[in-house]
């Protein structure tokens, strides 16, 4: 087991390093000279050279890349002498726009994105599992067909359209929800909560539809398994057959998908956060892309990669505890 974990962690680190290299390469090759960007209006060639020196942009590509990677683990110092700036351990550089440390920006916004992700995940899991189960139990009936139709419809509506429609209906027309206002949780928990309701719904609906389809298909497959027939032949009560022999095998694959989906979402929901003006990692990513803020884009990309890799490892570990076949073979 520890050996299995170790090999997963090493290969995960390898993947992250590749992600790092790839994004660095893309921005190194494509982006306009950052020094010019930072320099601003009152620029002189000397100033640009000085900025280049401070950021290490006059170094060859590999040196820059190594400095960047080392910075993440050990921290680094930009510039020399009096103007030197110390960037502490998880150093992802500074935003060209706001001069804030990228790491601090991420840490600030991560809880917001996490709130969006957790709420949405709870919603879509409940809806997806319930819908899928109902659909499977009532296979072929009107309820089944209705749910199937609903899932297909909701999977085909883009998030931003859904967001606008929901806003119009729930806030403007029906006025079930107040107009979103930025408030800290401590000041007005109710308003804070209501702010998140729409983003949660918008994010959850697509996933819920996919999970409904997945759950339905899995449950129907498992019900056709010979071991379910064996369970009935043993004279077990139907409730026990369902609980023990049908649901557990049917829902195990859902765990895998959920781990990946959730991890991906923790790194920010780009469109939803932007549409609803939520100040999370996703919106930060969108903004930084619009302004070509290279260090921030790098930071967000790495964060997303990191979360997916960690999510993968967690899913594998969870899987070994719920599926005995994997456990023993590992």
């Amino acid at each position, binding site marked *: 087991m520890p050996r299995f974990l170790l090999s997963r962690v090493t290969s995960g680190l390898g993947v992250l390093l590749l992600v790092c290299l790839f994004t660095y390469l893309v921005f190194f090759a494509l982006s306009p000279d950052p020094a010019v960007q930072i320099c601003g209006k009152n620029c002189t060639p000397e100033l640009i050279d000085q900025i280049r020196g401070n950021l290490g942009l006059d170094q060859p590509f590999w040196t820059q890349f190594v400095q960047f990677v080392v910075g993440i683990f050990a921290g680094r110092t930009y510039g020399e002498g009096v103007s030197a700036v110390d960037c502490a351990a998880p150093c992802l550089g500074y935003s060209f726009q706001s001069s804030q440390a990228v790491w601090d920006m991420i840490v600030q916004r991560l809880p917001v994105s996490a709130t969006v992700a957790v709420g949405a995940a709870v919603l879509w899991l409940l809806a997806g599992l319930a819908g899928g189960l109902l659909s499977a139990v009532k296979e072929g009936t009107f309820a089944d067909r209705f749910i199937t139709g609903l899932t297909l419809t909701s999977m085909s509506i883009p998030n931003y359209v859904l967001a606008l429609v929901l806003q119009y209906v729930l806030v403007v027309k029906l006025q079930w929800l107040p107009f979103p206002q930025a408030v800290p949780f401590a000041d007005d928990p109710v308003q804070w909560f209501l702010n998140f309701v729409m983003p949660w719904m918008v994010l959850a609906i697509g996933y819920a539809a996919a999970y409904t389809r997945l759950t339905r298909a899995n449950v129907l497959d498992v019900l056709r398994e010979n071991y379910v*027939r064996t369970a009935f032949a043993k004279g077990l009560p139907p409730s026990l057959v369902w609980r023990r022999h049908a649901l557990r095998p049917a829902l195990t694959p859902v765990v895998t998908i959920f781990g990946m989906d959730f991890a991906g979402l923790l790194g920010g929901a780009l469109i939803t956060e932007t549409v609803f003006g939520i100040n999370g990692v996703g919106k930060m990513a969108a903004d930084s892309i619009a302004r070509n803020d290279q260090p921030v884009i790098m930071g967000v990309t790495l964060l997303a990669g990191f979360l997916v890799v960690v999510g993968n490892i967690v899913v594998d570990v969870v899987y070994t505890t719920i599926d005995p076949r994997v456990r*023993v073979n590992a």
Partner: protein
Amino acid sequence: MTATTSDALLEVRDLTVTFQTPRGPLDAVRSLDLDLEPGGALGIVGESGSGKSMTSLAIMGLQPRAARRTGSVRLLGRELVGMSEPDLRRVRGDRVAMVFQDPLSSLNPYYTVGLQIEEAYRAHRPGVTRREARRVAVEALERVHIRDAARRVNHYPHQFSGGMRQRVMIAMALSTEPELLIADEPTTALDVTVQAQILDLLQEIRRETGTGLVLITHDLAVVSEITDHIVVMKDGVCVERGPVERIFTRPQHPYTRALLDAVPRIDDEIGELRAVTPGSAVVPDQVVPTNGGPA
């Protein structure tokens, strides 16, 4: 609800299993009669689509939901057709137990074999403690000659070989000491050496416990070795029945004769296998409807 005439273990009369298809009703089993004395062994032989597996499920009331079952199935004089579902559940796995073809897919991969034997036992012995059930599970594994049963009881199905898994299935079936064991192609998925061991085990269990056996198979050599009466099925209908020796020495029905002629023999001089001549209506090897019969 008392026994009518005999003290038969199993008395099936006019058993019919009907599916509604878009092209009208289709009988998977039609007007089947079966008789089995306590401790006897009955072989049901047929090729695919003969309805032999559906028969075994229908005896237990486990036919698919889409199917309708009519006729009479009496177990020790008690009528099972029309019995309430909770009452049927008390019979299933307790008085009648089943062993299926593919032991790997018939055991749930997520649970230890111990748990799967225990739940079968506890379902029919309310109030039994886990420890008691565990003891029964270990004993059941020992009875089917699984070595080191006290340790093996905690293993998962995939940790057993094919033959060992089928032993686990048999142990599970026997844990409640049923009067009747229905084995549906119990050795078809197994290698020939393992098959021989499982057939020996079934024989031994019959000898020692007096459990009645219904053995369903396509393999004539297998039924000839371990059953004393045979029912030959084709297209859902019994075409011939009788004591095993009579069927194998003086088959009456053309289909039975054709079947016996077609079996390749290991101890036989080479010669043309007498396959049924084309055009004879006896063996169905013609274009069949795509939906086939119920599995």
